């Protein structure tokens, strides 16, 4: 076996990645970045529309959704000021358990 064949043989064996879970902090940062990107180009889909479409809201989103405020407020990103986001972005296995919170969903538990 030539040197080239030897290396090629082993490289091909090692080509496929093993299944690896992305760190939950990474998923949280990605989601925050996407939300920021979407907010930067206009309002998000309102919480009312999201809920009507079957999207399950976390308790904070639900509060905003039922509050007597305009649709503009309901199209903002409440996660921006939420402790769950801060913990999710910084702590692997963050101690957060709010139902329907995306940052809770990203935890590798």
């Amino acid at each position, binding site marked *: *076996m*030539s*040197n*080239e*064949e*030897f*290396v*090629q*043989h*082993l*490289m*091909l*064996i*090692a*080509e*496929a*990645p*093993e*299944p*690896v*879970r*992305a*760190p939950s902090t*990474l*998923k949280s*940062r*990605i*989601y925050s*970045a*996407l*939300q920021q*990107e*979407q907010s930067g180009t*206009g*309002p*998000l*889909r309102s919480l009312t*529309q*999201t809920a009507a*479409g079957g*999207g*399950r809201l976390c308790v904070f989103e639900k509060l905003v959704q039922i509050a007597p405020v305009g649709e503009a407020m309901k199209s903002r*990103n409440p*996660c921006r000021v939420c402790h769950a986001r801060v913990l999710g972005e910084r702590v692997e296995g963050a101690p957060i358990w709010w139902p329907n919170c*995306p940052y809770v*969903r*990203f935890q590798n538990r």
Partner: protein
Amino acid sequence: MAASPEPGAAVESSDLQLAELVRQKDRKATSDLVALHADAVYAYIAHRLQPNKTHAEDLTQEVFVAALRSIDGYRGTSSIRYWLLGIARHAVQDHYRQSLKEASLEDTGVTGVTVNDNLPERIDDERQRERTERVLNRMRQDYSVLLRWRYWENKSTAEMAALTQKSDKAVERALARARRQFSELWKETL
């Protein structure tokens, strides 16, 4: 090309629906996009960039941001995961190109090694794979990138030379040195 997106990856109607909701800036759809596909994209990138985990994380995030910016271009001709892995593949190739463009590719004294005629047949693939990964992680980074680009992305010497603005000969010589270093480290790495 086992790690690459598989041709014919099925498109589900839920993929089209997800993409449409992401276009509408639906936050739950955006979280679905991340929750459903971040593991696969990260695994692909981390494997190709190992052992640099920080850079793998940065690149994974860049892939998702790039995907969001071009979500209007997703037509459902492939699954969302296949589409995301395609973006990831381009990002990895760009990383390879950039790191080799900046590398000197000069000879730093890798000796001529001929160790390759007795690949132990009794070692199973999994052990060979782990040992190969350890060798790649110990190699000079530009040499390791050269081997990954050559064998995992099927890039020819001429293509790598053109993309890194180096001569064919320089890349050929560096590739030969990379193989020699691989063989040398293979002997040392158990």
